[in-house]
C-alpha cells in the first residue's frame, strides 16, 4: 500500500501525520476532590508522530503524581524526538534500541523530577498529611512522590514502535482495518498494582514492541479507559470509532465530541481519569476505514472544505516540530499552534 501525501492545487502538502490528545478527570476524583493525575501529549511532523499518556498514582505517598505524569509526558516526547534523529542507526537490534531509549527516559525523568523538587521542595503541609513511614519513605526517595506510568508510541510510514511501563493500553490499526495490542503483557499488573517510573528496577519493568510494516493509526490510553469496557473488543471498537470521528469531522469538533464522551465514559464506567492520545496517517486511514465500513463519504472534501486556507501553507520544520501539544482537563493547550483551531 503506497502512502501518498495529499496535494492541493497549490502543490503544497498536508501533513502525513495527524494526532490529538485529551485527558479528562475521573468522576470519582471529582467526588473526592482529587486532581486529575493523568497527562497526555502528542507531536506530529511530516516524518512521524509521537503519542504519550501517563497516569500518576493515587495513594498517600504519591502526592505529586499529577506533576510526575506531566513531567513524564514532556520528557518522553523530547527524548523520542532526539531518538528519531538517529534513524539511520535503526538497523541495529530493535530490542537494544528500545532498551536504550527507555533508560534515557528514566534518567531524564529522574533529573526533571529532582529539579522540580529542588525548585519546589516538599512543604510541611504536604508531609504532615503522610504517616510517619510514608513521610520517611518519600524523603529518602523523592521520585516516589511523583510516580507515574508511561505509554509512548511512534508512527512513521515504514514502521511503528511503542514502549510502556505500568498499566494502560496501546492499540494499533493495521492496513487491513484490524486493531490489536502488541505490547507484551505483564502478569503482575492486576488488582490496581502497577509498575512505575519510580520503581527501583524501572528499567526491567518496561515492555515494548516494534513493527517493521507500515501501520495506519495508533492510540494509547490510560487504564481508566480500558477499565470502563467489559472486554477488549468493546475497547478496540471504541478506538475505531475515534479514528472515524477524526476522519469525518474537523479537528475541533472531533475533539469536543470525544471530550464529552470521555466524561460520560468515566461516569458510567471506571470512574478513573481517562486519557487518550492518537496518531494517524491521514491518507492511509481514509482508505482503510472506507474499505471496512463501506463509507462513501469523500472525506478529502470534508477536510479541505472545513479547514481554513492558511493551514495549507507549508509549515517550516521548526513550527511543526516544536513543543508537544499538551492538553489539561480544561481543554486548554499550552502551545500556540497555527494548525489547530484553538478559538
Amino acid at each position: 500500500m503506497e502512502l501518498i501525501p495529499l496535494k492541493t492545487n497549490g502543490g503544497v502538502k498536508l501533513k502525513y501525520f495527524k494526532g490529538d490528545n485529551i485527558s479528562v478527570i475521573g468522576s470519582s476524583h471529582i467526588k473526592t476532590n482529587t486532581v486529575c493525575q493523568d497527562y497526555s501529549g502528542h507531536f506530529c511532523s511530516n516524518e512521524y508522530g509521537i503519542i504519550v499518556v501517563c497516569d500518576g498514582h493515587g495513594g498517600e505517598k504519591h502526592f505529586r503524581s499529577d506533576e510526575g505524569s506531566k513531567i513524564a509526558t514532556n520528557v518522553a516526547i523530547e527524548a523520542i524526538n532526539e531518538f528519531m534523529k538517529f534513524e539511520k542507526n535503526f538497523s541495529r537490534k530493535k530490542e537494544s534500541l528500545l532498551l536504550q531509549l527507555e533508560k534515557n527516559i528514566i534518567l531524564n525523568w529522574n533529573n526533571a523530577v529532582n529539579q522540580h523538587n529542588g525548585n519546589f521542595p516538599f512543604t510541611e503541609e504536604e508531609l504532615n498529611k503522610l504517616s510517619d513511614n510514608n513521610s520517611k519513605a518519600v524523603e529518602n526517595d523523592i521520585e516516589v512522590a511523583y510516580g507515574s506510568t508511561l505509554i509512548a508510541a511512534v508512527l512513521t510510514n515504514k514502521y511503528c514502535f511503542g514502549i510502556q511501563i505500568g498499566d494502560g493500553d496501546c492499540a494499533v490499526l493495521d492496513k487491513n482495518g484490524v486493531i490489536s495490542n502488541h505490547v507484551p503483557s505483564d502478569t503482575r499488573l492486576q488488582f490496581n498494582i502497577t509498575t512505575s517510573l519510580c520503581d527501583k528496577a524501572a528499567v526491567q519493568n518496561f515492555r515494548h514492541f516494534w513493527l517493521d510494516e507500515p501501520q495506519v493509526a495508533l492510540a494509547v490510553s490510560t487504564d481508566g479507559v480500558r477499565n470502563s469496557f467489559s472486554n477488549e473488543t468493546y475497547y478496540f471498537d471504541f478506538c475505531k470509532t475515534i479514528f472515524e470521528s477524526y476522519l469525518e469531522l474537523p479537528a475541533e469538533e472531533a475533539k469536543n465530541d470525544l471530550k464529552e464522551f470521555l466524561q460520560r465514559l468515566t461516569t458510567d464506567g471506571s470512574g478513573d481519569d481517562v486519557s487518550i492520545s492518537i496518531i494517524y496517517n491521514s491518507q492511509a486511514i481514509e482508505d482503510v476505514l472506507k474499505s471496512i465500513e463501506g463509507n462513501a463519504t469523500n472525506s478529502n472534501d470534508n477536510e479541505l472544505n472545513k479547514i481554513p486556507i492558511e493551514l495549507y501553507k507549508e509549515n517550516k520544520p521548526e513550527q511543526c516540530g516544536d513543543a508537544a501539544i499538551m492538553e489539561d482537563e480544561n481543554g486548554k493547550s499550552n502551545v500556540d499552534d497555527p494548525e489547530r483551531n484553538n478559538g
Partner: protein
Amino acid sequence: MGKYDKVEGISKRTMVLFFIIDKSYSMSGSKIGAVNVAVREVIPEIQKIAEDSADANIKIAVLTFSSGAQWMYQSAIDAKDFQWNGINVDGTTDIGQAFKLLNEKLARNGGFMTDAAGSYAPAIFLMSDGQPTDEYKKALADLKNNNWFKASLKAAVAIGDDADKDMLAEFTGNLESVLIVHTPEALKKLIRFVSVTASKIGSKSSNAPIDGEVQTKQSDFNQQIVDFNDTLIDSQYDDWN
C-alpha cells in the same frame, strides 16, 4: 456526539464478595438463623456502598457446604439483584469441597472472574462452626496457589468454640483476620461489619506501584477487624440460645 452514541460495552468495574457458609448439622438453630438474617440484611447495605462509590459495582456469590458443597447461584450476581435463599442445615463439614469449588470459580475461564470483575481483587468471607470432615489440606493448598485468591481480601469467623481456628487462620493467612463469636447477636454484628468493610475497602481503586506495600488493603482490613472486635460485646462462652 452522534458518533459515540453507538459505543457499546461500557460497564463499571466489579468487585465480587464471596460468602462461604458452613451449613453442617451443628449450625442448626440460632447459628444458622443469625447467618440467614445477617446476610440477607446486609445485602442492601452493600448495594448502597456500590452506588455511592462511582467506581465499582459489587457482585455477590454464596457457597454453602455440609456434605459436599454448592453455589447458591451459578454466577455472581449484582448486589441490587441478589435474592437471598434461606439456608437450611444438614450433613457434615466438607470444607475441602468448598475450597475446591471456590478455586474453580476464582478464574476467568469458566469462573466468576469475568473481565469487568477482574478489576478488583475479590473479598472472601468464610464462616464455620466445626471441624472439617473431609481431606481439606490439598484443596486448600491448591486454593492458595490461585492468584485471585492470593490477592483477595480474606476474613473468617469461627462460630463458637468448637470451630477449627487453626484451619481458618490457614485460610486467611493470619490469625488477625479470624474472629470468634459466641452468641447470635455478635455473629450478626460481625457479619454485617465484615461485609460492609470488605466492600468498602475492596472497591476502592488506587494504583499502587509494585515496589510499595502490596498488602496494604489486607492489613488495613485486618486492622479494622481487630479494632471492631475490641468493641464487640460478646460472651466469653458459647451461648447459642
